């Protein structure tokens, strides 16, 4: 019997993740953004490693640039982390319950830690810490 489904209709929903092109593009876009952000982040860590609490607060409050880049580093990193770990879980965990559980855990951990980090950076940068 002839099938009236288009090749695209048949292909949709196949594969380990059942969907994917949006996530695939998102992982690349965040990767491109993370190249300069991570290089900046390495030097930020070097700078912060030699500073105490007051030095770290001063570094974060000195100009809008440092907290802005730090928030961007956190947000883009956590988007990239979520997407990457999601692919790892989808590739290796087959049982529906453990797979769904781990996917939810990955999402919740990234959302919680990312939000905590952004709120904390803003709190310090906006002067709430001193």
């Amino acid at each position, binding site marked *: 019997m002839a099938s009236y489904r288009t090749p695209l209709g048949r292909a949709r929903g196949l594969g380990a993740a059942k969907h994917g092109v949006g996530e695939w593009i998102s992982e690349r876009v965040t990767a491109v953004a993370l190249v300069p952000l991570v290089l900046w982040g390495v030097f930020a860590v070097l700078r912060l490693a030699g500073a*105490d609490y007051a030095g770290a607060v001063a570094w974060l409050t000195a100009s809008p640039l440092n907290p802005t880049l730090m928030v961007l580093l956190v947000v883009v990193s956590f988007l990239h982390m979520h997407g990457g770990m999601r692919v790892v879980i989808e590739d290796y965990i087959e049982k529906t319950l453990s797979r769904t559980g781990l996917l939810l855990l990955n999402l919740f951990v990234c959302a919680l830690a990312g939000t905590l980090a952004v709120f904390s950076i803003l709190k310090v940068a906006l002067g709430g810490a001193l």
Partner: protein
Amino acid sequence: MTDAPRARPLSPFTGIWRWHVTMATSIAHRVTGCAIYGGGLILAAWAVCLASGPEAYAAFQAVIGSPLGLLAMFALTFSTFFHLAKGVQHLIWDLGFGYRPQTASLGAVVCIAFAIAATLAIWAIAFMTGAL
């Protein structure tokens, strides 16, 4: 149309393979990605401790400054630089370049060399600037 379904052809991945630098770096890309997932959580912990006050921040610095913390930071530095370099090679592949075996292998070797050199350079700078 009652033929039994034919056995599907399988990719010969289980019998015909050998270790190769592109294969090793592909696996390492995933492993380092999982490692710096932990690094992202440490970054979040840094921000939360900083916003919680001097005592919390001193505790955070004590953990990171301990021998185990420094070892973890060293491993994270290498993982970050390797994942960064290999990620750039993946982006170049996504653009459709660098698929010739010699080019791909060379790129993989460059990723490893860059990660080692950049890690040593950053830790040398950390020693010299007194950040350690």
